[in-house]
């Protein structure tokens, strides 16, 4: 039998205690926080899990020893420290929402932890409705949008393939101006032409093309792909950075430091992400080489294309916190939370995009602030934060 942890209570609890925050916070404070948490790799940084329980907001999952998982929980007091918990230790720590219990169970059974895998699972759980009808609808819409992005990527690859393979002068109509059915016909012919050089059947090339399109779903095939998720996130972060800059100028004494901090890290991250995105798009300049690379080592290419996803993981929540601040807790508390959640850039990022990144100094300068629950002024309760977190799911699905 597990020994009783200090924060576990005995006996019946009152209705109010069922969702109250203080027991959870006091329980967390009895754990030893990790000061100066500086992960060296993105996997060590962990993947954001969109929990709705206030104490777990912004928490990240990462692999631990013996196929277990750990949860990295940002310190609720506003300090730049984290708590690292084994997956099972979260259960007595706080009363998780039903949604989080389902999500937590699903994440624990994941064979491989990636932002894409968590996103897929989170949508599956959200569609069950336990985070509200809005979150369920948003999850379904997001899945549909991703499917459309994959389709767009597929139809983005075909003109490049035709242009590269089709003998010059064979067709007067440029492939990008072709009707969809005619483009497919010409692409099919191009696949037949290139298959022998790749040492495989046309059917195998076609399958590879489908898989490549799926891998490019997040980044899109070319610059300015509006439906792809990664360019959209980068655009959202750039807008966030601009708005935070303006906010910091207007409120230098109040939320200025938090706004500057978030804007600064957002700026660095978007520079890196844009560079990675450009690298990904450059791969489509030579479709034959891309196909050959995919057929030789699909995992390596998938990993490469997933880098922006790792880099930007967690930022959609930060952007959504800002976008929804006015209708929930207000910009001041939102900025405190955003600053607390700003993802550290691990040194691994330098290898990914040869950019010098060091946000730690800025983070250490960050003044500690605490958004208090239960203040008479804000009147914010745990239930409000859960509702707000459920709304965030609608913006980040």
């Amino acid at each position: 039998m597990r020994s009783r942890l200090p924060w576990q209570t005995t006996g019946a609890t009152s209705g109010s205690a069922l969702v109250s925050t203080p027991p959870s916070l006091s329980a967390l404070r009895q754990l030893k926080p990790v000061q100066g948490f500086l992960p060296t790799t993105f996997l060590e940084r962990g993947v954001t899990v969109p929990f709705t329980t206030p104490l777990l907001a912004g928490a990240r999952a990462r692999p631990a020893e013996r196929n277990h998982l750990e949860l990295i929980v940002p310190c609720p007091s506003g300090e730049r420290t984290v708590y690292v918990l084994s997956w099972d230790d979260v259960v007595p720590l706080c009363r998780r929402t039903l949604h989080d219990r389902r999500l937590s169970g699903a994440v624990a059974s994941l064979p491989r932890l990636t932002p894409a895998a968590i996103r897929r699972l989170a949508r599956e759980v959200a569609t069950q409705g336990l985070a509200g009808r809005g979150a369920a609808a948003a999850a379904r819409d997001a899945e549909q949008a991703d499917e459309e992005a994959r389709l767009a990527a597929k139809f983005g690859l075909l003109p490049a393939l035709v242009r590269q393979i089709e003998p010059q002068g064979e067709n007067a109509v440029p492939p990008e101006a072709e009707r969809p059915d005619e483009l497919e016909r010409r692409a099919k012919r191009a696949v037949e032409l290139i298959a022998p050089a790749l040492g495989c059947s046309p059917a195998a090339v076609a399958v590879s093309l489908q898989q490549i399109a799926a891998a490019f779903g997040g980044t899109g095939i070319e610059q300015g792909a509006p439906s792809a998720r990664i360019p959209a996130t980068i655009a959202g972060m750039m807008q966030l950075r601009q708005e935070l800059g303006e906010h910091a100028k207007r409120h230098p004494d109040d939320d200025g430091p938090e706004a500057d901090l978030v804007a600064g890290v957002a700026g660095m991250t978007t520079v890196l992400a844009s560079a990675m995105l450009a690298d990904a798009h450059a791969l489509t300049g030579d479709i034959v080489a891309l196909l050959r690379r995919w057929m030789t080592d699909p995992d390596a290419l998938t990993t490469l294309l997933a880098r922006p996803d790792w880099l930007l993981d967690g930022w959609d929540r930060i952007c959504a916190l800002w976008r929804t601040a006015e209708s929930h807790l207000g910009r001041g508390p939102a900025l405190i939370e955003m600053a607390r959640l700003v993802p550290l850039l691990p040194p691994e990022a330098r290898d990914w995009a040869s950019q010098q990144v060091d946000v730690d100094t800025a983070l250490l300068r960050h003044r500690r602030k605490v958004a208090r629950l239960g203040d008479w002024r804000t009147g914010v309760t745990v239930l409000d934060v859960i509702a707000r977190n459920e709304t965030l799911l609608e913006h980040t699905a």
Partner: protein
Amino acid sequence: MSQAAGTPVGAASIAELRTPRHDAPAARDNQVIPMLAVADKLTARRGAGVLIAPPHVRLAEMRSKRPLNLFRLLCTPLDPLIVPGHAWRRGSPGIPRSALGPLGRVVHGILGDTAAGFDAAIAGHTSDEQDVVAEVGARLWPRAAEILATVAMPVDWTIATDLKAGDHATLVPAIAALLAQAVSLRRLAARACSGVEPETDELRTMLEAVVPAGPVALAMMVLLLMASLPHSERLIRLADHLASRQDGPAGRAVVDGAIEFVLDKLEDAPSPGPNVAQATQHIRRAAIMLNDLSSRAAHRPVWRARIERVRRKVDSACRERFAIELDAQLLSPAAWLAGGSELEIATLEATARALRRFETTARQIGSAEHYDMLLRRAAEVLRPTATEDASERIDRIRLMEILRGPDAALALLKAADA
């Protein structure tokens, strides 16, 4: 954050807590907005006062959305102190509403051409636009403080206000001193909102700044700070210390006067009821205030008894109000849960959260077992039925999670899945 005129510092009248809401907010807004529009066009406040008196609480609720004008902007920092003329008592730290019109006219007159600049800066804005209030107020309030610090009593003062000349000598320097501190007070309140409590030295500086304006000014500043800070205990200790150094009994009784003001308001006369969210806000303030005052009244049996009496009254009003609201706002509408639209379900969930906020706050005052019992009963009513589809079942389980917590909801979910 401004409070409604006539709304006490951190306290709802018991009648406000007891009175349930009967109309949908939108419908009530539709009724009140045209009246406010007419009121805003009236130049004579007396006439407007008569017009808007019946929906006064709705007015309080919507005050933050009213068109911004120079007079309203001028009075914003004083809002927590303003009381109806008939309710004002000489020597109390309240400001009779009747005094504000003449003072506003004086300020406007002395501002002269400058007034047009202020009018232009706020034209088309409403009083809930905090950035505009802060920016233009930061220019207006210090200037108004300068004007009022030296102004002579208007000739029509006694006729226009029903006050005496001596009241002018007490009130106006105090108002001037408060307006001089309005920008600092606002900044402090904003920081308190984002979790940064003021340093003791900051509080002391603000209190000492109004001491020359007399004991009433000091009591007023104590009340304004009480209205701006999450807790008052440290402030009260500080004010006590400062008051003990004042000359004369009036100076030393400053904090007592402020506390009397708060307790009076807690037991105030009946008025129409606000909505649940507003009632919760009032209870929260009342609960915190009663706790803060209790600690100060430890050695004052008379005060302890009075605080306890107020607490019991508030508790009784809360229980009564919660039972009515739970049934009217949640359980009755939930009978038609099946087939509800996304918006209807979201509204029902928001109502459940609002009721939980009310209950969580009210149980700090007392009667925890009573609320537990009501919530258990509500949960029984909301239990899923065998004829409902999966979506409706999840809607009910979510309502259960809001009302009774995830463990109770999980038990229901398991039972439903089985």
